[in-house]
């Protein structure tokens, strides 16, 4: 029993991993900043008395992904759970004026995830078991002027995951698309968000853990985002395009 976390610095990832650790799973924290995955691995090994270790991965350094996956699998051959949390919100206005920003948003949220996820998917497919959860976003359900760069990358990711799930279902590998709404994390800190809609990372982490364990396909978290997005996606385009969203 083990969990590989890609994007160790995320509070949502740590909250999800805490449930796996409590259930006795080995945790592998991977991230881009050298010392941080180590800090989390260390904390988890004290807190939950489980085996933990840190690995280095840069979402945008695609050529290194194969070696990364091989390394992880050689150390943990029985790896059975993966949680991918890579993400970059960026700034919409900056991305409109500067393609480098748009590029980074698209690559971190989409290309980077696809690159590493394919490698892990192939392994799980050949073994005919495994559990892959990837954090997409409600922002990917419909493009809005305030963050369509991020939204489109996440939207692409949701479509990718839907296809991957379709491919892997016959192999018994579960693919979970997680669509969080507003979560109280450093990513959203300082934004003027409607407080009652903002969930804690702990709440979202618990939802993800439960959804992974029960083999769900798509999880809106907290649940009410399913309703909110149902309404938002059902607004006719001729009205939607004039709305300030």
């Amino acid at each position: 029993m083990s969990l590989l976390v890609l994007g160790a610095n995320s509070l949502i990832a740590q909250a999800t991993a805490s449930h796996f650790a409590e259930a006795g799973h080995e945790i592998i924290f991977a991230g881009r900043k050298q010392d941080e995955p180590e800090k989390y691995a260390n904390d988890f090994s004290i807190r939950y008395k489980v085996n933990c270790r840190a690995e280095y991965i840069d979402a945008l350094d695609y050529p290194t992904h194969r070696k990364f996956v091989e390394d992880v699998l050689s150390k943990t051959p029985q790896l059975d759970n993966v949680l991918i949390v890579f993400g970059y919100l960026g700034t919409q206005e900056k991305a409109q004026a500067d393609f480098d920003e748009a590029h980074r948003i698209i690559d971190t949220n989409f290309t980077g995830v696809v690159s590493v996820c394919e490698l892990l998917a192939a392994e799980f497919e050949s073994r005919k078991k495994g559990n892959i959860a990837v954090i997409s976003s409600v922002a990917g359900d419909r493009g809005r002027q305030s963050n369509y760069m991020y939204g489109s990358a996440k939207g692409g990711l949701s479509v990718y995951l839907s296809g991957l799930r379709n491919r892997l279902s016959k192999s018994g590998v579960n693919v979970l698309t997680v669509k969080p709404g507003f979560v109280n994390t450093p990513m959203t800190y300082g934004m003027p968000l409607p407080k009652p809609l903002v969930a804690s990372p702990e709440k979202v982490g618990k939802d993800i853990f439960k959804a992974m364990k029960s083999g769900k396909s798509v999880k809106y978290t907290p649940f009410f985002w399913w309703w909110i997005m149902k309404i938002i996606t059902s607004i006719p385009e001729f009205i939607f395009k004039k709305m300030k969203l």
Partner: protein
Amino acid sequence: MKFEEIELSGFGKYPKALCKVARPNGIHEVLECLKSGSVISRGLGRSYGDASVNDSGIVAESLIMNKFISFDDSSGILRCEAGVTYKDILDTFVSRGWFPAVTPGTKYVTMGGALASDVHGKNHHKEGSFSSYVISFKILIASGEILECSREQNADLFWATVGGMGLTGFILETEIRLKKISSPYLVNKAVKLKNLDELFSNFEEHDADYLYSVAWMDIVASGSKYGRNILLLGNHCESTELTEKLRRKAAEKYVEKKISVPFEIPFTTLNKLSITLFNNAYYMKARSKTDFQHYDKYFYPLDFILNWNHIYSKSGLIQYQLNIPEEAGKDAVDKVLKKVVASGGGSFLAVLKKMGDQDGILSFPFKGYTLSMDFPVKKGIIEMCRELDAIVLDHGGRTYLTKDSILDEKTFKQMYNGLWEKWMDIKIKYDPENKFTSNLARRIGLCPS
């Protein structure tokens, strides 16, 4: 660096001020806060007044810098980031036979906060305050340097930071010693007493047998009921003393049950009538007895009700905690109590306990007696507290900065005479430009001039 503009206060919800709040994740972000202006760190905001409020700069929350760094299972020495809370420690270590050596009455306190307030618990008269179990800590000071402090290394900064209300720097890590226990239960002895005389003689009578001791005081009752109280004594329970049923329960994973006061009650439910009714019922129902209690119920009864401060409505509450020297003893407590009873402004949360000797500069405890009370904020309360200040000063006592929201500079400097000057010399050495400051610090003159 990202900020949120929030109307902040301490746990007492009085006073309030609009602050720029940051939530740094790592040292580089704390340094960014320092570049943006003056800084006070804030953990869970459990100090009652304005100790973790700073409306002239930045409030930097330590909450996501909350990782365990190392733990030695043979000595019980834990090193962790300053945002780690008592709850984190209890959840992790009680089942392994370790307990915080000193704990305040809530587990929603960070290690950084516990150090900056040098918190004490029901065992102070025997085992001292939090700092007595601090081996060392790491702090980021105004120059941007990071220093390790202990009784041997940077000792002046060590002592100025203990009880220093966060004004010497941003505490990053603490290394503390936990206490070995053999069960999560305590032996709890309640002794129902009629007056202060009985209480003071019972303090002495049970001194040798119990580690924890605190008395609940009825500070509304007058006439023949004046001064009635219940002395609560306790010891950690050996697992061999437990009943079979409790032994089984102790081995299971502990699941907390909680209720919450979801919103501020819009009017003051606490008045002389409701408190008198409560206190009567509480005292009548109480029996002198001995039983076993789980640590969560024994140490943190109020944590069971999340946001219990909401019952004090929007206007909030004032906590008043005084410490008077042993020799002033019963007479001083009697004077304070008479004043409070006469005002009728008291609440049902009043405790009296014996305190022991304590090293430190601004650390609150010293050998004597401490009385802690809370009052709903209303007309006349501040004036009454000023009258209490005068009694306290008169007997060579002082009040607790962590609870305080009303002290003025002159009174503070009289109470901490000889100590604040010593502290200020160290403050000037490490933070001459007053980069670390708070509303409390400015109110009571803990700033280099």
